[in-house]
């Protein structure tokens, strides 16, 4: 099977001293791709910058104007976590465009798996605000483009942080499902099981908060018992993965304890959500330990390509296994409760 990648390499000017979201992350992720030794089965999609019209599907025009002006004014700290430089606007639009280019290549070929090794990451970027290292919401731009073509898109987010930006953008969008598994409590503070979507898309937002220390067996159960049934009911025509690798046990930014093999399991699971060839793409989000990022990317893509790689063992035995039952119950109660509420208000 073909792997189609798009990487943003000349992004050395989007960096800030001592900041963990740095250019070497892309090189580490691409080293994981190299470890697969794909030869001619590795295809590089053309470089492409997202247009204003493509960005406007998910971002407010005023925000795009402000962000561009801020960058070209020299940039600086946007908030306590997020920075921009003079070059950040061009790098961010290339990152958003990378997803579009990979999808376009997948559509042209009708086969393969996509990997968007671009930064800055995107899933915290709100419609009108940068945050959490993110300037433009790359996976959202891609999902919105597909939705505009009549596709039904499932976004599976396994970054250790909740993708609050993606959730907000598609909160009430019936053609895009958003499912996240993340450590909680943790930045950005959102992602409770009771956050389930707006009246037009009730139940199409799925959140599985996991406790500190949770291992692969817990994420497996979350996928199997909560995410998979919702995705199957939604019946997506495309699956996009917000593939952060900061839930790895070696990552310094959080406290989940996944191993490389767990990412392979997750990738195998989401691959089963896809109903046809050439309709699955992974988007790099977090992941700040270069070694873990490299091996996790290799594991993920090898499983998606159905060419398993020898990795460290699966993790198990951490806390949170019982929490899955509580999440299921909370989610069910929230859906029933909001259905009654929206019916009362005449929104259903």
């Amino acid at each position, binding site marked *: 099977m073909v792997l189609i990648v798009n990487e943003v390499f000349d992004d050395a000017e989007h960096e800030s001293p001592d*900041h*963990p979201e740095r250019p070497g992350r892309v090189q580490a992720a691409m080293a994981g791709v190299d470890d697969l030794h794909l030869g001619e089965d590795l295809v590089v999609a053309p470089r492409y910058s997202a247009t204003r019209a493509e960005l406007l599907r998910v971002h407010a025009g005023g*925000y795009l104007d*402000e*962000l561009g002006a*801020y960058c070209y*004014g*020299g940039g*600086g*700290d*946007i*908030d*306590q*976590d*997020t920075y921009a430089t003079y070059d950040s606007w061009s790098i961010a639009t290339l990152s958003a465009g990378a997803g579009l280019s990979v999808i376009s290549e997948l559509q042209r070929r009708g086969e393969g798996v996509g990997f968007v090794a671009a930064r800055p990451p995107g899933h915290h970027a709100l419609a009108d*605000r*940068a*945050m*959490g*290292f993110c300037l433009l919401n790359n996976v959202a731009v891609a999902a919105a483009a597909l939705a505009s073509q009549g596709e039904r898109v499932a976004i599976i987010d396994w970054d250790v*942080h909740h993708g609050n930006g993606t959730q907000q953008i598609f909160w009430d969008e019936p053609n895009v499902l958003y499912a996240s598994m993340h450590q909680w*409590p*943790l*930045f*950005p*503070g*959102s992602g409770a099981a009771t956050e389930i979507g707006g009246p037009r898309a009730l139940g199409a937002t799925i959140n599985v908060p996991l406790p500190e220390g949770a291992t692969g067996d817990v994420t497996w159960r979350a996928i199997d018992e909560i995410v998979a049934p919702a995705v199957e009911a939604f019946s997506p025509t495309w699956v996009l993965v917000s593939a952060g690798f900061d839930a790895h046990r070696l990552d*310094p*930014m*959080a406290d989940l304890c996944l191993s490389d093999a767990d990412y392979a399991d997750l990738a195998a699971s989401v691959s089963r959500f896809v109903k046809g060839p050439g309709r699955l793409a992974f988007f790099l989000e977090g992941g700040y330990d270069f070694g873990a990022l490299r091996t996790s990317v290799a594991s993920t893509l090898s499983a998606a390509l159905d060419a398993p790689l020898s990795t460290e063992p699966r993790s198990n035995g951490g806390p949170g296994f019982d929490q899955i039952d509580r999440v299921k119950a909370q989610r069910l109660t929230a859906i029933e409760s909001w259905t009654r509420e929206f019916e009362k208000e005449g929104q259903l």
Partner: protein
Amino acid sequence: MNQVTSIAVGFDGSVESETALRWAAGMAHESGASLTVLHASGILERLGSAFEPGVVPEAVSRIMAEEGIDSSRFRWVIEEGDACSALLQCASEPVSAQVLVVGSRGHGKRPGTMIGSVSLEVVQHAKVPVVVVPGS
């Protein structure tokens, strides 16, 4: 306006947030309201932070003492999240703040720019009155 019984103020350790804190403490002193001093902990604080839950920063203690607010009248709270969302959340239970107080500019912001402005975001989205305290 009803009697104010709960005020929340954002604090990030900047000079501007100290000014906002002093203003909020003065209001709490005059109204008898309780005061929640909130610090929003971003992603990077995982790599090391000047603030710890349960440990009131020296600057906060000092300003409280100078404004006549004893330790039973204020709470030091750290929430994981962005500053805007965390402060807005204070208007809901359990804090139920009737007034939100924020400095006009936090750490590292470029003067004259709107992007990343917590005060602007809070003003735009708050359902309770917001006081934006200009830096000294």
